[in-house]
């Protein structure tokens, strides 16, 4: 069998350009985890149902298991590792998930955090229906959605307080 086709791609991950040579079939989720060592992005179902692997591509939340890394060449990727500040200060959605007990096993959490963070950029003060619609594509099998929804509301308050301080 001939050698598997590979390409050199550059992904801008959490603000840092990362160049890597990868086989064309490499999923973005695997490129992040295996090639770049960013294991915060979790892989659950690998067919777009569970939402664990959600990352932001050019600011838009998308399933990294349904995107080939080669197709994300030259795109801005934000993973859960990119949420906290450089000094380790938690992002409002991380702080809120902690405060509201919105995670137990934590497997689904990275996906929920990315969806919630992107929702609050678009809708700084979302109502319950908007929150439900935004998180509807993510599955949680242990904590439950009530606390997760509370955490998104709390994250909106925390974000408002931060931007209020200016």
């Amino acid at each position, binding site marked *: 069998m001939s050698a598997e086709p590979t*390409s050199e791609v550059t992904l801008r991950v959490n603000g840092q350009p990362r160049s890597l040579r990868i086989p*064309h079939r490499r999923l973005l989720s695997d490129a992040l985890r295996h090639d770049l060592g960013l294991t915060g992005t979790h892989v659950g179902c*690998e067919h777009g149902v569970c939402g664990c692997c959600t990352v932001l591509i050019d600011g838009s939340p998308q399933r990294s298991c349904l995107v080939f890394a080669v*197709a994300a060449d030259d795109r801005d990727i934000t993973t859960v590792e990119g949420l906290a500040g450089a000094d380790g200060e938690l992002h409002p959605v991380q702080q809120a998930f902690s405060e509201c007990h919105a995670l137990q096993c934590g497997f689904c959490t990275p996906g929920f955090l990315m969806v919630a963070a992107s929702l609050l950029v678009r809708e700084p003060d979302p109502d319950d229906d908007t929150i439900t619609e935004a998180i509807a594509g993510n599955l949680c099998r242990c904590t439950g959605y009530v606390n997760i929804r509370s955490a998104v509301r709390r994250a909106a308050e925390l974000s408002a307080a931060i931007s209020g301080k200016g």
Partner: protein
Amino acid sequence: MKPAPFEYHRPADVAEALDMLAGLEEAKVLAGGQSLVPLMNFRLATPAHLVDISRLAELRHVDVTERGVVVGASITHAELMGHEAANEACPLLGRALRFVAHEVVRNRGTTCGSLAHADPSGELTAVLALLGGEVTLASQSGERTVGAADFFVGYLQSACGDEELVTSALFPRLGEGSRSTFVEVARRHGDYAMCGAAAAVEVAGDGTIAAARLAYISMAPGPVVIDVGEVVQGRAPADVDLAGMYDLVSSVVDPRDDIHASANYRRHLAGVLAGRAITEAAA
């Protein structure tokens, strides 16, 4: 759960994409990949080549014309949902798109890709069929336009040939006085519909219904259009004969059993959704 090896190609323009589709063996078009990549992860699809059209500027357009809304092949569901003029010209688009998977999938999945994929539970297939829309296909030998009735040829099969590319789809406007909606029942919101229906209702000057049509998903290998005018003509929207609609529709549809629902349950849903869709559209 990993795709088989393939070679990825990113053409610079549509002409190069068509050359690739003509010249490469076992090539598939990659747009959003929200249906294709799961199939590849399961190795139900093992194309040797992928031709990525998602960045082609020529296909990145939504045109609102007198006839209707023309959607270019690299436009995502989310982009179409957010296009105000398109939704004003064709409100059924937005009403159907909110049932297409979830926001995160709509951010990457494309409307034309969903038509080309021809999933029997794809909401847009019913919208195209109900409105009498058409799909434009390009290949090295030129362009052709295929009407909805001829485009969906079987389960996951469209009229798009191996060397052809769907470049756009036209969703026609409904006439003056016509209204539309989309209803569906799924196990969970965003899941594949057990039954879904697009409805178009023409309301006369005196407020009674003059004509009504439905297009169903998840009932057959392709969308099923049913004219229900004979049951509802001359009636006020609040006075629709729900039992008559149920009987007509459930006698026409011929669904199959699968793991999500039995054929009988699907047939029942089709009957119930007929009344719900027509009443909601006409209201």
